């Protein structure tokens, strides 16, 4: 469906106006999601199956995240189907979004190094183009070019890693590799050059973590997220990390933990320390994303199902924060630029108390205050890590989240100075679609603790 509609949009995007195209595309995505959910059967997906000549594998491990990505995408797409104050519309938005979605959906299912490269490029190229979609903005073009160059570097590393893997194992298939890996581990006498296969994966894992923008290879991603238009930042700072993270998680039995460990420590320290000196909201949120994906790395090391809980809460909180920021742009009388009207922390003095309350709740969730989702997700990550005896990591995680609380509360301090300004509210208002989405996010955030037991039960059954 995505491929077919992508081909159709190639023709129709040039004929119709952009908002109609966005609406049609959003509808198509919704329908695609429905078809996707309809074509799965949880009972039959245990233990899973391979598809397209062993190029992809579909299991209960990678399925939940593809659902989550679809859901998140839909919310962000809806923002572009309405009339907003700082209108950024393009006919080609949907077209690129669809090709990006294809890459995102297929990347977590990848079971072969060649398809890994192909899917990676499918989603990266469309993201480079999406970043530079509004090329009237000097910053957006700069972000796009930077993203392209840095993404290219990582791609080269992935190719190089694939070459070494193929050279050693004679295969590009991950199922074959894991079989080989098991054989080599059980039979120590047969250890090829004293190197296990896992060591050869290090280069590839590093390239993927580079693409995810985790510290110490993070400087480029901070600039890219900062320069891109806000609604694009909301999208790309999340999805690329999510799909790559899911692939790493599903195949984590193939990798060494050392690489994850290094990125975990540095990401946590950088993500909690650097934003303390920032005034720029988008940079702060980019660092916060890095911090959160640092936590996620810990779940990859422990191979714990708290990965899914963390992802769920992070998607929800991230959506709420960015949707809140985008809606707050309606009140910006003196925007920084029309592409990112709300950029600095001092602009958070909003004339709408409800909106600032919502943003505060999202920040509370990021801090990890009960009963918000952030608390439960951190709780599960911590208990999972402690069960596997990752004591130092657990302690560091606590310290870093306390440090991060400082800059979240700094944002909150600004939000607390908000006052309802009736004159302003009469002139500019958040349109009904966005208001509806925000309220839906808020309900999901507030009631997370109610539906969490059901989610956990479902996850437990799926992972058994």
């Amino acid at each position: 469906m995505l491929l077919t509609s992508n081909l159709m949009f190639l023709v129709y995007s040039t004929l119709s106006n952009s908002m109609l195209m966005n609406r049609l595309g959003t509808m198509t995505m919704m329908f695609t999601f429905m078809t996707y959910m309809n074509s799965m059967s949880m009972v039959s997906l245990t233990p899973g199956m391979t598809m397209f000549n062993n190029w992809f594998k579909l299991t209960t491990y990678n399925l939940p995240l593809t659902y989550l990505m679809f859901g998140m995408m839909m919310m962000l797409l809806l923002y572009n189907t309405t009339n907003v104050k700082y209108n950024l519309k393009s006919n080609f938005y949907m077209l690129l979004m669809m090709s990006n979605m294809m890459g995102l959906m297929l990347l977590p299912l990848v079971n072969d190094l060649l398809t890994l490269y192909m899917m990676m490029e499918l989603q990266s190229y469309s993201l480079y183009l999406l970043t530079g979609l509004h090329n009237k903005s000097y910053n957006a073009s700069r972000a796009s070019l930077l993203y392209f160059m840095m993404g290219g570097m990582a791609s080269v590393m992935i190719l190089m890693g694939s070459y070494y893997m193929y050279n050693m194992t004679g295969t590009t298939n991950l199922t074959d590799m894991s079989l080989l890996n098991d054989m080599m581990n059980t039979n120590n006498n047969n250890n090829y050059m004293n190197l296990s296969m896992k060591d050869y994966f290090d280069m590839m894992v590093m390239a993927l973590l580079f693409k995810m923008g985790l510290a110490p290879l993070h400087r480029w991603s901070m600039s890219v997220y900062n320069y891109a238009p806000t609604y694009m930042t909301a999208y790309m700072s999340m999805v690329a990390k999510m799909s790559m993270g899911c692939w790493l998680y599903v195949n984590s039995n193939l990798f060494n933990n050392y690489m994850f460990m290094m990125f975990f420590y540095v990401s946590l320290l950088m993500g909690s320390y650097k934003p303390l000196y920032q005034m720029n909201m988008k940079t702060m949120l980019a660092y916060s994303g890095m911090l959160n994906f640092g936590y996620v790395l810990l779940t990859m090391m422990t191979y714990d199902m708290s990965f899914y809980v963390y992802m769920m809460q992070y998607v929800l909180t991230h959506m709420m924060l960015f949707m809140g920021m985008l809606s707050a742009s309606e009140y910006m009388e003196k925007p920084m630029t029309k592409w990112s009207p709300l950029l600095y922390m001092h602009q958070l003095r909003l004339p709408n108390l409800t909106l600032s309350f919502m943003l505060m709740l999202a920040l509370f969730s990021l801090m990890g205050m009960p009963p918000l989702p952030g608390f439960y997700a951190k709780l599960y990550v911590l208990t999972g890590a402690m069960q596997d005896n990752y004591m130092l990591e657990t302690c560091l995680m606590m310290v870093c989240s306390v440090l991060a609380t400082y800059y979240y509360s700094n944002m909150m301090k600004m939000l607390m100075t908000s006052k309802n300004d009736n004159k302003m509210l009469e002139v500019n208002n958040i349109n009904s679609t966005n208001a509806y989405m925000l309220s839906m996010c808020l309900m999901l955030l507030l009631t997370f603790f109610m539906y969490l037991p059901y989610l956990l039960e479902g996850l437990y059954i799926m992972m058994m």
Partner: protein
Amino acid sequence: MSYSKQYEPVRGEPPQSDYEIIDVDPHFNRVVSYFRPADYAVWGLTAAAFPISLQVWERLEPMNGSFKPPTKIPGGTLRAATLLGFIGGFYLSYVNSSKRFLGWSENAREVKKDRYEIKKLLSEEKLPYHENESKLDDRLKDIANRNSQYSFTMLSVLPWFNFAHHPYHGVNIEKYYETRPGEEEWGFKLKPYDEIKAKYYK
């Protein structure tokens, strides 16, 4: 390239299912011919739902902004929406039908239809999956199957159908030689499968 007996490819067990498995990799024509009236209804409804939802959306949230009069949607866009709905509806029906082939959803009607068809072919001394009609050699049949098996689960991302008559269908032909209640009246006299196979595979 043809496979000898020693090199016959091995296939994994089909996924577990709540209902009886009919065919793990049915031919495209077979999937479409097993559509139920409900599938055609879904197809039609989806084709209609796309342009209608576009209209309703414009009523609820006009493009010019909230509380403004709704604008007229150009015919070209409506036609594009209908086309998208038509294709989408077909995919959805195809998925539903494929799920019944794998026994993922209720399939009593299809099991009966399949048993009738295969029994008929066996009584006419024809191969049940028309392998002999395919121009592909053994290796390509093998690959065709590996490419298209379970591809319907990803139909929402990229379309991929089985257009090859290959012998890999994940069921034991012996089950068609049993007579289940109500099948006596069909009056088929089945030839042993080995004899039929010997006729085509020389």
